[in-house]
C-alpha cells in the first residue's frame, strides 16, 4: 500500500497527528496493533497538573517547568506552540464540548475521591468543579463494582474543607453480568431505564446542587443521556472517569476516528508494524503483519506514535535491554546499570520512567550525538523521552501538542 503519510499507533497522539494532516489535504493511513490507548484515558485534557506540587496555572508554569527539564516533550516542542495546538484540538472534537482555561487548572474528583487538576474538561464533567458552600451528591448503582460512591464522598469531604458531600447508592436490579460497564452504557441509552434512575436520584437528592455519577452515561458523544437525566432531576450532572474501559476516552476515540474518516484518512486496526526499509537516508516503507500476511506500507513520511512502555512501543528483554522495536531508534534516559532502573518506593519517581526517544524541535528522532536519524520520520506522544505523564498529569497534553507540532512540521517540510 502506498500513501503520503503513514502513522503508526492509534492512541491520542497518532490520531491527532493523522486528523491534523488529513484536514490539511494530506493522504494519511493509520496502522495500529490494537485499539489504541484511549480506552485507558480519563477523557480530560491534562496539560500539567503537578510539578511536583499542584499547578494552578499550567500555561503560566510551563516556561519555568521546561527550563528545569530541557528534555521534556514540552521543551522540545516549544511553549509557544501549546495554546494553538490545544485550541485546534478543542475544535476538532467540538462535540465533546471541551471547556476550560489554560491558565487555570480545574480540580475534578477521581474515582477514589482525590482531586485531579485538569486544564480542559469535556462538558460531561464540567459540573464536577465544585467549591465550598455547595452540597453535592456522589451516586452509583448498587452492584456496579468499579465505583464506590461512599469512598469517593468520604475522600472528597476530607480533601476540600467546606465541601458538603453525600453519597447515594441507587437500588438496581439485575445480576452481576448485567452491571458490566458496556451493558450499563447501552441500557442507559433507553428512556425507560433513565426514568428509573432519575426517579431514584430525585428522591435521594437531599438538597444537593449537583450530582456526580461514574462515567456510564451512554456510549455516544452527544451528551443526550446526561442532559435528559439533568432535565428529569433538575440538577447538573457530572461524570467521573472510572477504571478502564473508560467511556470518556472511548467517546474521544470515536470522534477522532470519525474526523479522520471525514477528512479522507484511513484507519487499519489489527496490523502490527514490525520493521522498516530505508533508502538514501530516508524511511521508504514499514512492514506490518497480520499473520500469515505481511503488508508493506510505502509512504513519503512516517509518524511513530506507539505509546512507550505501557503500550508496547518500547520493549525490555529479560536481560534489561530496552529497545524501540520497529526502527530500532536509540533511547535516551535509560540508566546504564539495570540495578538503577527502579527504586523500592512505588510512589517515588523511578529512574527508568523518563526513558524514550529523543527528538529535535520538529519531533524528528535524534541519535546520541544529536543528529537527525531519518529526515522523514517523526515521533510523538508517550514514546518520547523526558516525561512522567502519570505523575505530572500531562499525558493528553503531551500527546496533542507533540502530534500537532509533528503534523505542522510535516506540512512545512512539504511546502
Amino acid at each position: 500500500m502506498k500513501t503520503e503519510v503513514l502513522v503508526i499507533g492509534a492512541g491520542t497522539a497518532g490520531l491527532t497527528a493523522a486528523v491534523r494532516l488529513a484536514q490539511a489535504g494530506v493522504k494519511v493511513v493509520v496502522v495500529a496493533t490494537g485499539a489504541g490507548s484511549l480506552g485507558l484515558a480519563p477523557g480530560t485534557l491534562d496539560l500539567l497538573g503537578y510539578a511536583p506540587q499542584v499547578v494552578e496555572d499550567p500555561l503560566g508554569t510551563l516556561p519555568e517547568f521546561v527550563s528545569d527539564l530541557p528534555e521534556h516533550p514540552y521543551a522540545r516542542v516549544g511553549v509557544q506552540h501549546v495554546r494553538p495546538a490545544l485550541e485546534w484540538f478543542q475544535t476538532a472534537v467540538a462535540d465533546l464540548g471541551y471547556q476550560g482555561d489554560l491558565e487555570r487548572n480545574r480540580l475534578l474528583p477521581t474515582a477514589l475521591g482525590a482531586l485531579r487538576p485538569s486544564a480542559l474538561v469535556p462538558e460531561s464533567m464540567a459540573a464536577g468543579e465544585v467549591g465550598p458552600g455547595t452540597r453535592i451528591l456522589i451516586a452509583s448503582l448498587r452492584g456496579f463494582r468499579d465505583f464506590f460512591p461512599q469512598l469517593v464522598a468520604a475522600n472528597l469531604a476530607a480533601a476540600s474543607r467546606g465541601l458538603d458531600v453525600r453519597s447515594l447508592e441507587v437500588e438496581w436490579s439485575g445480576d452481576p453480568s448485567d452491571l458490566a460497564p458496556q451493558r450499563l452504557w447501552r441500557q442507559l441509552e433507553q428512556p425507560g431505564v433513565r426514568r428509573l434512575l432519575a426517579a431514584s436520584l430525585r428522591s435521594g437528592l437531599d438538597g444537593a446542587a449537583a450530582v456526580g455519577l461514574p462515567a456510564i452515561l451512554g456510549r455516544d458523544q452527544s451528551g443526550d443521556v446526561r442532559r435528559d437525566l439533568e432535565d428529569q432531576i433538575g440538577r447538573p450532572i457530572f461524570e467521573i472517569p472510572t477504571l478502564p474501559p473508560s467511556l470518556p476516552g472511548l467517546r474521544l476515540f470515536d470522534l477522532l476516528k470519525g474526523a479522520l474518516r471525514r477528512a479522507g484518512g484511513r484507519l487499519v486496526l489489527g496490523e502490527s508494524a514490525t520493521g522498516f526499509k530505508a533508502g538514501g537516508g530516508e524511511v521508504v516503507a514499514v512492514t506490518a503483519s497480520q499473520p500469515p500476511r505481511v503488508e508493506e506500507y510505502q509512504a513519503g513520511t512516517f509518524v511513530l506514535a506507539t505509546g512507550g512502555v505501557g503500550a508496547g512501543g518500547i520493549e525490555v528483554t529479560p536481560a534489561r535491554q530496552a529497545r524501540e522495536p520497529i526502527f530500532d531508534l536509540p533511547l535516551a534516559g535509560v540508566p546504564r546499570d539495570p540495578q538503577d532502573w527502579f527504586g523500592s518506593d512505588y510512589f517515588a519517581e523511578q529512574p527508568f520512567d523518563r526513558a524514550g526517544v529523543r527528538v529535535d524541535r520538529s519531533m524528528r528522532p535524534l541519535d546520541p550525538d544529536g543528529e537527525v536519524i531519518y529526515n522523514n520520520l517523526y515521533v510523538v506522544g508517550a514514546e518520547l523521552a523526558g516525561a512522567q505523564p502519570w505523575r505530572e498529569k500531562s499525558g493528553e497534553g503531551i500527546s496533542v501538542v507533540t502530534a500537532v507540532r509533528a503534523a505542522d512540521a510535516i506540512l512545512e517540510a512539504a511546502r
Partner: protein
Amino acid sequence: MTEQPETELLVIGGGSTGAGVAWDAARRGLRVTLVDRGDLATGTTGRFHGLLHSGGRYVVKDPDSARECASENRILRRIAADCIEDTGGFFVTTPIDDPAYADRFLAGCAVADMPVAEVPVSEALRQEPLLNPRISRAFAVEDAAIDAWKTVWACVRGAAAYGARILPYHEVLGIRVERDAVVGATLRNSLSGAEVEVRAQCIVNAAGAWTGQIAKMAGCHVGVVPGKGVMVAMNHRLVNTVVNRCTMPGDGDIIVPIRTVCVIGTTDVPVEDPDQIAPTQAEVAEMMEAGEALVPGFSRARALRTWAGARPLFPKGDASGKVQDTRDVTRSHSVIKHGQVDGVGHLISITGGKFTTFRLMAEDAVDAVCAELELDSACTTAEVPLPDSEGHHFYWLGARQESMEERVHDDAVICECELVTQGDLLSAAARRPEQQLDDLRRGLRLGMGPCQGGFCSYRAAGLLHHDNYYDRGQANQALGSFAQERWKGQQTVLWGQQLRQARLDTWIFQGILDLEHIPA
C-alpha cells in the same frame, strides 16, 4: 498491661511448625495459646514454593531427611488432602546433569522406602510437552503441590476446636524466667499497641528462622542459620507436574505448579537477618537461566513476581551454627530441651526441618513438652484428618471455577485472574475483621494472578469501606500499601509483558485515580 488467662502451653510462631504443635498439643488435652508477630503463615511457611516433597531431592545427599519426607508425604496425603494438589513429580536427567547420578538416585529411593518408577522419556514428554526434549531419563515420584496457608489454617482451626487460643499480631517482647524455668512471656498486640502478659507452664519456640532471636530472650543460644532462598512465580503453569533435575541439590532445579502459576526455586545463601532477604537482580537472572535446563525458553517466559524465604538451617550437633556451605546442612530437624542444655526448664525449641515434615516436627516437640510436664500421652495426628480434609479429596485446579459458576448470577467476580468474588471477600473479612488487605490477599489469592491486583485491589478497598470493615483512612492506606507490596515483589522482574502491565497499573492508580494525592 492486660493479662491473658494462664495457659499450659505457649507456642511461639504461627508457621507450619507452630500450627502443627498447637493442633497436636490441643488434641492431647493441653490448653494451648499460639502467638505470631504477624498474621499466621507469613514467615518461611508463606514464602516457599509449595512443594510437598517425595523425598527424591535428598535420597543421595541426606538419606535421613529423604526417609522422613517419604513417610510424612504419605501421612499428609491422608490427613490434609484438601490442601494438596496431586500433581505427581518427575526427576529428569537433563543434558547438563551427570548421567551416573540417576542410578545413585534409584538406589537411594529404595533405601528411603520412597516410591519411584522410571518412565520412558517419550511418556514424560507426552505428559509435559514443554519439558526439555533432550532429557535422557525420567522418574515418576510422589511430589505434590501443597497450599501452605490452607494447611496452617486447618491445623489452627482444628486446635481452636479443642479450645486453643490463636493470637496473630502478637509479638513476643520478652520471656519470663523464674527459678530455672520459663513461666510466661510479655507480648505486644501489634495492631493496638497494647502489651499483654501471658503465664504459661511450658513454652515451645517454633519461630523458624527467628528461633535464635526468641531463645535469646530466655538467655539461651540456638545457632539457627537463616538460609535465603529466592523464588520466581511465572504467569501460568508451564508444567502441571513438579519437575526436578536429577542431580545433587543445587540452585533453581525445581519447578512447582501451584494453583494458577508455577514457581521456580531456589537459592541457598546464609544471611544474618531473616527479615532482610530481598531478591537481587542477579539472583533472579540466575533463576530464569536455571529454568532453561528443564523448560527451554523459560528465561523468556513472563515472570510475575519474586520473593525470598529464610530457611531455618540448624546443623545437627553444632550449636555454634557456623557453616561454610548451607547446602551441606541436614534438612532433618532438632528438638532442643533447654532444661538439659541451658538449665532453663520448660522451654523447648524445635528447629531445622522442612514444611513436608512439619507434622513429625510437631509430634517430637509435643512429646518433649509432655515429658517436661510429666504427662502421659500419645500423638494421634498421623491418623486424624485436618478440618475440611475429612472427605479425602485432593484439591483440583478447577474447584474455584466450578464454585464460581454456581454463584455467577448472585455474586460478582472482583478478581478475574484468580476468580475471587465479592462474597468470598466479604465473608473472609467477616470471619477475621482485623485482617489487613495483604492478609486477605494471601488467603483469597486476591491479586496474585498476572494483573497483580491492578483492578481488584481497588474493588476490594471500596467494598471493605462500603461494608464498614475499613474507615476512609484504612481504605486509602490498604490501597497504598497493597500497591507498595506488589511493587516490592515485581521490582526485580520488570521486563517484557510484566513491565508493561506494571506501567498500566501505575497509569491507572496514579494517572486516573491520583492515589498518591488522596487526602490523609
